[in-house]
């Protein structure tokens, strides 16, 4: 079920602006890959090329290949819709459909397949997905209320529930926890751990601890300056990236002073 992704010499453009340059990487199946890097370096942009969401933006295009099990996602005979069905996505900002109830939000992707899903199967799926996103208890008795009435964190968890409800083969997550409280974050992180048994997972995060906790491999992106394209600096086992990175830039980034401070803080709390 999980699928390997090979990216070769990928250049990503917004119109004439080269946003990300020359990325090649391999994303392993049944593992979690984390993307880290400073803001604006193109993590989100790159992530969106993996399920062809990038081309939704007018003028946006890519050069190079993204292969999934040897099949170029940008090949002529490939249907972007099928790509997106197999490569799910959770966004930075929660975006539940405001016109749908909580239940319908979870079922939104499933319903698209026009499959007449039986009522009981639907109920089960809703519960399983919401439990997976650690939202079940909070919303179980208002499944028919609009999804937009939830708080930010609840909304994001609803979106995660919606994404996992369609059981994709690859799951892309763009800072999925940035609007979540620690308990929800923890639940999601645990969920990621479970999901990777079957899926290929890619996560963008600003939270070093999160990257360290959940990912098997980490890719560090960086940007030389404004207007310059983002680049993949280094990709390796997560422990290697955080302990003995090959590049100086990576080392500078992952051991930025705050991180030291943070560990001190935590140490202080722990005692």
């Amino acid at each position, binding site marked *: *079920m999980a699928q390997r992704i090979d990216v070769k010499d990928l250049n990503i453009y917004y119109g004439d602006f080269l946003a990300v340059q020359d990325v090649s990487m391999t994303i392993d199946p049944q593992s979690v890959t984390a993307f880290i890097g400073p803001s604006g370096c193109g993590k989100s942009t790159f992530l969106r090329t993996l399920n062809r969401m990038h081309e939704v933006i007018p003028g946006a295009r890519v050069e190079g290949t993204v292969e999934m*099990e040897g099949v170029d996602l940008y090949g002529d005979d*490939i249907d972007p819709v099928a790509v997106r069905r197999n490569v799910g996505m959770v966004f930075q900002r929660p975006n539940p459909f405001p016109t749908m109830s909580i239940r319908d939000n979870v079922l939104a992707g499933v319903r698209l397949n*026009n499959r007449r899903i039986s009522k009981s199967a639907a109920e089960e799926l809703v519960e399983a997905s919401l439990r997976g996103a650690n939202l079940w208890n909070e919303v179980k008795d208002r499944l028919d209320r609009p999804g937009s009435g939830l708080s930010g964190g609840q909304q994001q968890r609803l979106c995660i529930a919606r994404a996992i409800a369609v059981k994709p083969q690859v799951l892309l997550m763009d800072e999925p926890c940035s609007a979540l409280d620690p308990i929800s974050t923890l639940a999601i992180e645990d969920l990621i751990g479970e999901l990777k048994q079957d899926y290929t997972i890619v996560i963008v995060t600003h939270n070093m601890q999160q990257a360290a906790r959940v990912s098997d491999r980490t890719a560090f992106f960086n940007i030389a300056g404004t207007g310059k394209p983002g680049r993949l600096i280094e990709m390796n086992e997560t422990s290697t990236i955080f302990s003995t990175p090959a590049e100086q830039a990576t080392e500078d980034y992952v051991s930025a002073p705050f991180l030291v401070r943070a560990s001190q803080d935590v140490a202080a709390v722990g005692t």
Partner: protein
Amino acid sequence: MSTATIPDPSGTTEATARTRAALTGADGARRRKDRTMTVLIWSAFVVAMAPLVSLIWTVLSNGAARISMDFLSLSMRNIFGGDPSGGIYHAIVGTLIITALATVISVPVGLLAAIYLVEYGKGVLARAVTFFVDVMTGIPSIVAGLFAVSLFTLFLGPGVRMGVIGAVALSVLMIPVVVRSCEEMLKLVPNELREASYALGVPKWLTIVKVVLRTSVAGLTTGILLAVARVIGETAPLLVTVGVTDSINFDPFEGRMMTLPVFAYRQYSQGQATCPGGESATCVADIAIQNAWGAALVLIVLVLALNLIGRLVNRWFSPKLR
């Protein structure tokens, strides 16, 4: 998700083949439906273009021959029968003045009422305004005209005909359209922006003026232009409020005025002219209908120009989103 039940692949080529199958052979029915809808939506567009093209072509082919400098710069004073030397300057002037006046009356009232509904409105008054604005869209145009006449008759006695009465009649028709479309546009401004402004210590009225109106100005312009278009072609209410004249009148507060739609309608109604000596350069039997088409063409060009201005305003001010 046809692959969901297939066991984990062992051979790479097999996995490739299956992946390719999953990524290409998407659900045929859904793809077909998508195609069908795309075709339908394209054809909806073509269907809508057919009358537009036909209409424009009709007006152009019938009206273009009549357009000349004289036609645009002369009035119909002392022109009658098959005499082709008159023009529609008086009607252009009248249309511009009366429509402008109606816009000047309707836009502030309509926009402010929309602001009231979106930004302040709650309770009985707001519900009443919303509801009665809807009702107002149902006033037949002739009734609006009769209303304006009887209103002015109260103050000025019977028989007064002047541009401003027509403008009032048109305003009765225009205000609800302005309110409705402005209301829709204002509602689309995200609350986040209002909150951002309030949090900067900006009073509500400045927030409305500088953030809400500014953000929605493009939509508002479109809405107002639609409302202008709604009334610029009105005939019936102008006939009873402004009357008709052949001469030029720049003063909407004194005397009759001619407007383009009324002119076109009257000319169409006149039908054939009599040419006692037969058709000649000075007597054209179907001059009236030619005049009607000519006026129609000018009216459309006028509206087109207004629209163009609106577009430019729109382009200028629309938020650079996304």
